[in-house]
């Protein structure tokens, strides 16, 4: 019989520092999950837009008026952009070993955050 281990474990994530590389890696996973979960909505909106001319116009009107739809689209676009860029970092590391030192990893992580920030501002001007 296995005895239950009642000993405490120090795993309070709020007390453990997360360096920038770790943060970018974990956000990559979170954004990936979010994009995956939003996929049915995106496909559904796409199919509605293709159904007929009337439904396309109705949907584009909805985009002009519905703040909820605008904010959702915005978040999906930002999440997708981040996930895409962080994915390139992962590919660079897998294929060429780029970004596997502390310094290069940090620089790449900051570049991803910076580029996502710029794209987020761009989407802001386009959608709202």
């Amino acid at each position, binding site marked *: 019989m296995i005895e239950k281990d009642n000993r405490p474990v*120090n*795993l309070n994530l709020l007390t453990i520092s997360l360096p920038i*590389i770790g943060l970018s890696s974990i956000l990559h996973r979170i954004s990936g999950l979010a994009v995956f979960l939003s996929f049915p909505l995106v496909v559904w909106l796409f199919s509605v837009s293709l159904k007929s001319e009337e439904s396309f116009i109705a949907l584009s009107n909805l985009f002009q008026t519905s703040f909820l739809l605008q904010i959702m689209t915005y978040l999906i676009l930002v999440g997708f952009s981040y996930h895409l860029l962080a994915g390139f970092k992962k590919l660079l590391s897998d294929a060429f070993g780029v970004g*596997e*030192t*502390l310094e290069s990893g940090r620089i790449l992580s900051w570049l991803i955050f910076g580029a996502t920030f710029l794209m987020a501002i761009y989407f802001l001007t386009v959608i709202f």
Partner: protein
Amino acid sequence: MSAAIPVEQIKTITMSIYRYDPTVDKKPYMQDIVVEIPTDKDIMVLDALHLAKNQEPSLSYRRSCREGVCGSDGMNINGKNGLACVTPLSEVLKRDKITLRPMPGLPVVRDLIVDMKQFFDQLEKVKPYLITKSDTPDIERKQTPEAREELDGLYECILCGCCSTSCPSFWWNPDKFLGPAALLQSWRFIADSRDEATEERLDDLEDAFSLYRCHGIMNCVSVCPKGLNPTEAISNIRNKLLTREKA
């Protein structure tokens, strides 16, 4: 503090330390211990711990060589894993305060002491020793200086556990994911020109968890007190697995 230090060369700091005694405490708690430290020289976190222990004799932590060789005093210093004996207090003091917790993810035996069994179980799995099949030579197994250089950045690991216990993949799967320390050792022997069990070693790593649970978070590289790079070692193993020609 000993009376030998003149009063003007002393300042007080607060050490917030994780306390847990299984015979008394139901739950761990943080205790603030105020200690006096000299200001005319820098001391290590371990020295400050000794001062705290003078006040609280029940305070428990591991230490041995006190110079970053034995790897006993790995702990979480202000949220970041490191060796107390080679971490200067001046680098981690924030407003005269320092917070010490045991290394994350492993069961706490008492105060800052964790049970390293899971860590060493994973190390054992990678067979961290030279495996040879050919006849034993009369004198020694020779290695060129170039082949020996391949082991630089790998053999220096002191198995303190700072890397593996800062790795989220190891926290969630300490029994299945080998962790950065064990994988660094795995690559150390795969990369060794004298080792003759490369294929078997690679076979053992080819499952969803042992190696591939590494997601490149790189906390291991951030915390390694010896400046080693387990992420690179893991990447090297991955490349070796992908490019090998299977018999």
